[in-house]
């Protein structure tokens, strides 16, 4: 045995010498099919059921419309030109993304800590509270906003209470204001943030937080420096959902904001249903989609690069 071993050593040493700098044979890498196969079902479904309708919508946006003639099969960019030239549309789009951005930030600021707090709760409470968080999603937007109106309307409980206490003289405007839309949207969308942060919190090793504590970090610092960076994927997912939903939300802005606070979705709705000017509505939708994708993919890429470590 030991003889064999020593000869082996010798062989090894002498064999290694000559080709010290010869590169080892490279192994050819086969094309990575796996990710494509994995996403194939989804891609097929989307290609047929989403891309075709979206393409139809895009083509629609190139058509023209007149009240008596209806949709005319001409191909032109007039609708785009109209939107780009008209500052009414600029205002609507700007408002849309302003609201979406503020809502996203609010949801992240309140939703992420809530998910973290939930995770640290004891067993029966945790499930219960998680359920409560899902609550807003369970009632239809109509009754939800009804609740808001009853609470925050000029004659609502909050305003009446505040006035009774003498804190305010006139009711605080909530209905038909941007603030109202933002609060109501935050209310509906924050569960998405909580759930998605929750999903990524599950992976965290509690000992890592302990390590930070032991190094003298206060609870807030632990959250900011240790927990937060690790749950970036969750916050990102939540933000993307919230932003996209807020930017394309229809019901809440329509009911709480009313017609004077138009956003892109209510604008498209109007064009589609009230004036039947589908080409213009489709143009609004296409522009909204493009703007959304640019913003979201941009942020996604930025965040994934910034937190590369966490995403591997």
């Amino acid at each position, binding site marked *: 045995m030991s003889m064999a071993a020593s000869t082996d050593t010798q062989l090894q040493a002498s064999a290694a010498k000559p080709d010290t700098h010869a590169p080892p044979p490279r192994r050819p890498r086969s094309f990575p099919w796996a990710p494509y196969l994995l996403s194939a079902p989804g891609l097929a479904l989307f290609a047929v059921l989403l891309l075709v309708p979206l393409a139809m919508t895009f083509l629609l946006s190139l058509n023209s419309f007149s009240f008596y003639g209806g949709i005319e099969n001409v191909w032109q960019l007039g609708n785009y030109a109209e939107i780009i030239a008209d500052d009414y549309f600029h205002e609507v789009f700007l408002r849309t993304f302003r609201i979406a951005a503020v809502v996203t930030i609010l949801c992240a600021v309140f939703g992420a800590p809530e998910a973290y707090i939930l995770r640290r709760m004891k067993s029966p409470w945790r499930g219960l509270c998680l359920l409560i968080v899902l609550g807003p999603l369970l009632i239809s937007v109509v009754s939800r906003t009804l609740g808001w109106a009853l609470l925050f309307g000029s004659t609502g409980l909050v305003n009446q209470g505040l006035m009774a206490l003498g804190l305010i003289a006139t009711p605080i405007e909530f209905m038909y204001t941007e603030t109202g839309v933002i609060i109501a949207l935050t209310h509906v969308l924050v569960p998405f943030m909580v759930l998605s942060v929750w999903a990524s919190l599950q992976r965290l090793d509690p000992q890592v937080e302990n390590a930070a504590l*032991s190094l003298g970090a206060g609870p807030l610092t632990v959250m900011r420096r240790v927990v937060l960076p690790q749950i970036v994927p969750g916050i990102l997912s939540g933000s993307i959902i919230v932003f996209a939903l807020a930017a394309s939300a229809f019901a809440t802005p329509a009911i709480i904001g009313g017609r004077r606070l138009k956003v892109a979705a209510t604008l498209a709705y109007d064009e589609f249903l009230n004036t039947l000017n589908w080409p213009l509505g489709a143009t609004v939708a296409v522009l909204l989609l493009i703007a959304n994708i640019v913003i979201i993919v941009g942020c996604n890429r930025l965040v994934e690069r910034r937190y590369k470590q966490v995403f591997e």
Partner: protein
Amino acid sequence: MTYLVLDQLTKRFANWTAVDRVSLTVEKGELISLLGPSGCGKTTTLQMIAGFLDADGGRVMLDGQDLLAKKPNERGLGIVFQSYALFPHMTAAENVAFGLEMRKIARADRDRMVADALKLVGLEQYGDRHPRRMSGGQQQRVALARALVIKPSLLLLDEPLSNLDAKMREEMQIELRRIQRTVGTTMILVTHDQSEAMALSDRVVVMNKGRVQQVASPQEAYDRPANAFVANFLGRTNLLPGMVGSGAAGTVITVADSVWPVSQPVPPGPGALAVRPEKIGFVDAGGLSGTVLARVFQGTQWLFEIETAAGRVMVIRQHDGSPLPAERERVTIGWRPQDMAVMPADPEADLSAREAA
């Protein structure tokens, strides 16, 4: 000067008592090792001191103050976790710097201290690598550097060197010892490596099933174990059955074909003779005879297993070039009477050991 006091510290998980009324007093600047079989509650004890687990009973006093009342981040301890618990999203250097940032050390000082700490653990070139891209031992060293760099007055080390090779391990041991001496850090070290515990610690605490078995200096615990559990746990011991009786020169114990004088007062009748393998030598005559069953090379020493009429006996001889018997050779083994201990036969040695705590 008493620095850290554990008083009847207890932890129960559901119906499982992981730590059972552990009491211990640690002097300032002392290095204490916690020793014990896997699952005996060492990590749990440290986690309670650090404040990550709530104690179910007992107190912890640090420097006269009740530690359990403080939040973990205010206890100011340094900890090396058994599972490392590195921040996965930070580089090695950022991991090490974290504690310093918390202490608001100026940027320049911090960078220097981080570089020093990484150098200390031999990772000066790995500062900007993330934990996921490091080997097990490298991660462990980052964890060590992270705890050392903040120069805590109390340092809890949970198997800090388990993934390091002997060379690195020894260097780290020397470093720990140096820090303990120069900075005056009090350290509690959990280790499964007895020679590490022996070499490093001022005192060792031997635990079993959540209870403290013995607290003593290494040599004392080794040479005068409080009970059979400690004797067995700290290095190997041969326990040979024999018969205690009275010979011409006083009390003697007869083990198979050999007779040994007994100096302790032991009642006559069945007894057991305990002798550590490294105290046994090969003699020409006047000892226990047997056959070499196996000889195993262990680096600096050889381990022999000898089949005798009193059972298998383990013998350790230094690998110092002196001639040693081969396998299947017939030999006679012997030891000096003062190196052996005689106790009455006790079939339930382990059980009694638990009760003794």
